[in-house]
């Protein structure tokens, strides 16, 4: 083409003129993908009800976002995978047997109240799925703490109810918990593979870690929050979790139970609601771990991951304001 003819049609934009391939939606869909193995495990242990609850959450979340954005004549962003992710995470944080309206209300609270009313993706202060769950726990405390026993069959339509390992630990002590699973070794193994009562997507530690490893490998999350969160829980469980005084607790039980793995790798790491600076993320993780253990050991609930993350969400802006990266040139020379 002649150079002359081209002159009037040039595109002008600010540098840089090349970008890498990552996009928000690619990251969000990757996180959804990373949760898939654990979701399959929940299907295995809790049957079609697990999938039904999760699907309800996802459909309601995506639909709520669509209707809200449509009604306010905003850009429709449901394809970016973030509303899908909120629904998926909320579903995985619910007991497998729930009346159908409970997941629907939770998803509405998560997407409309927690996310869209604050301005949509990027502007919310709290993790939407966790606010949805907190609302449900307060509104329907009975239904939200009625746990199904795992069946390991893919088909269980109904199951007997039972207590979660953390519930047993709190109410009846470690002896009863071990007795329930046979031996300490069996307890660990069942906690690892997910054959225990609990929120439907939180139980299978091994599959959650598989997904987390993928996210770490893709650098969509970094070690800072999960490691500081888990390490704090481990140390505090060891120090204060035992009956026979300081440093007699069993950290593994606390690390493998409840929603800790799901929370530490998939919810505390939510970009929007955690600090941006890595150093600040360590403070955030330690705070999450400390509050979790405070609730687990001293609080009224057997599990504290959800409230811990939500409380630390409040601190994220403060942490970002005060923990800054090391400005180039302010470090002492090393050579």
């Amino acid at each position: 083409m002649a150079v002359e003819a081209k002159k009037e049609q040039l595109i002008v934009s600010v540098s840089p003129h090349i970008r890498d391939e990552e996009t928000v939606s690619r990251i969000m869909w990757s996180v959804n993908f990373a949760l898939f193995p654990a979701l399959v495990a929940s299907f295995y242990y809790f049957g079609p009800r697990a999938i039904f609850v999760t699907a309800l959450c996802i459909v309601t979340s995506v639909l709520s976002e669509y209707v809200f954005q449509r009604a306010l004549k905003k850009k429709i962003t449901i394809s970016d995978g973030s509303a899908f992710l909120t629904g998926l995470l909320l579903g995985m944080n619910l007991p497998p047997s729930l009346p159908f309206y409970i997941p629907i209300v939770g998803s509405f609270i998560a997407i409309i109240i927690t996310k869209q009313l604050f301005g949509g993706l990027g502007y919310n202060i709290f993790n939407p799925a966790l606010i949805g769950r907190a609302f449900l726990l307060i509104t329907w405390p009975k239904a939200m703490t009625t746990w199904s026993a795992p069946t390991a069959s893919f088909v269980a339509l109904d199951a007997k109810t039972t207590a979660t390992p953390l519930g047993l630990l709190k109410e009846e002590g470690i002896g009863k918990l071990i007795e329930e699973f046979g031996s300490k070794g069996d307890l660990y193994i069942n906690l690892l593979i997910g054959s225990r009562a609990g929120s439907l997507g939180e139980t299978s530690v091994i599959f959650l870690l598989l997904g987390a490893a993928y996210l770490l490998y893709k650098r969509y999350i970094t070690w800072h929050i999960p490691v500081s969160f888990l390490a704090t829980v481990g140390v505090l469980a060891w120090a204060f979790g035992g009956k026979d005084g300081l440093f007699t607790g069993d950290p593994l039980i606390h690390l493998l139970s409840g929603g800790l793995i799901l929370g530490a790798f998939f919810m505390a790491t939510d970009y929007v609601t955690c600090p941006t600076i890595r150093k600040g993320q360590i403070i955030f993780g330690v705070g999450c771990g400390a509050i979790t253990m405070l609730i687990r050991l001293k609080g009224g609930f057997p599990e504290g991951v959800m409230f811990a993350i939500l409380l630390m969400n409040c601190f994220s802006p403060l942490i970002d304001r005060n923990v800054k990266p090391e400005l180039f040139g302010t470090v002492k020379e090393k050579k």
Partner: protein
Amino acid sequence: MVKTDTFERGVHPHDSKELTAHKPIEKAHLPKRVVIPLSQHIGAPAKAEVNIGEEIKKYQLIGSPPGFVSAPVHASLSGKVIAIGDFLHPSGRMIPSIVIESDGKDEGVPLKDNPDYLRLSPDEIKGLIRDAGIVGLGGAAFPTSVKLSPPKEKPVDTVILNGAECEPYLTADHRLMVERPREIVNGLKLIMKALGVSKGYIGIENNKPDAIEAMEAVVANESDIEVRTLTVKYPQGAEKMLIKAIIGREVPPKGGLPMDVGVVVQNVGTALAIYEAVRYGKPLIERVVTVTGKGIREPKNMMVRIGTMLTELLEDCGGLVDGAVKVIVGGPMMGFAQWSLDVPVVKGTSGILVQTEEDFFPSEEYFTCIRCGRCVDVCPMGLNPSMLSILSEKGHYEEAKEYNLFDCFECGSCAFVCPSKRPMVQFIRLAKSQTKP
């Protein structure tokens, strides 16, 4: 694996240098006319020394510096001055310029060879560099003689030649190092002499093995000059990052300069220009420009007269392909997109990149910041670009200063990795323009 030196953080864009890396520097056709801006450097614009209608020769002084921080400009061909006035400059501004119509003869003021050039005194060297109008050819275009005259209280002990060429696509410095290594090293020696420095380094990124080999062969017997292999990472060629990589010193923030840590950095192309100026008295009237990208028919490295219009230079490279949509002066990371091709090549023009629809990313559409922190992880200056962009977006310019706004040198690494495709550099420039350091 060779051990390579580098700095912390940064990004890894595809280097795309294969288009021109193997192509020897070609002489561009003598342009029909040149538009020579009187300000192609940082500092005061030069004052026109010729009048409309005047016949002038190549190398002739046509603009003289009014002050210390400035540089003269010279005619890049012989011919007649046909206009003096404001013309579009690649920076997007209108700049007073002198237009010369070529007489086709390319007659120059005679140059004199001084084989004893290495015996000249530091002041003589600096004088010749100043008279030749040499400015930093890496892109910043700071007058070189000023850079070589640090104040007494800032002793300089090291000179680093910048052969990193970390901008993707550009191969101008690469080719110079392959083709003219001896002259570059002679230029380095002159810089070291002018500064009274006994230690010189040449930093070259690992993706230019032939350049490293060529430079190493020349400095094999020079005990005080060392070639250092650098990691391929952007912005490795930024002065501060280069100094950190090679000698581990960190230039202080808040307006600190390399001389604050005893270093002067010069681009390899500048070293060559210095050699030619000191040895032959040749003013800076031409430079190597990489003309490249999918949008140009024949990507090449060209030796181009200063003032050559982009229209002529692009035709010289076979013209644009049908899908060409964007013409960038400089590299893809920090270059300026042009709205008109009636702009001249200036002293600081290291490349011209033509992008096509295939390359083009529709940057007018961007999303909210999700605070993923990727920009923080790559910022070579240790800033929080996410916060700077959010504060700028909201108009909180003063508050942005608390996050070291003015330490940003606009390398674009943050925007490169941003998954929301936010125009980070634009936000930061806007904030800078609305407040004072």
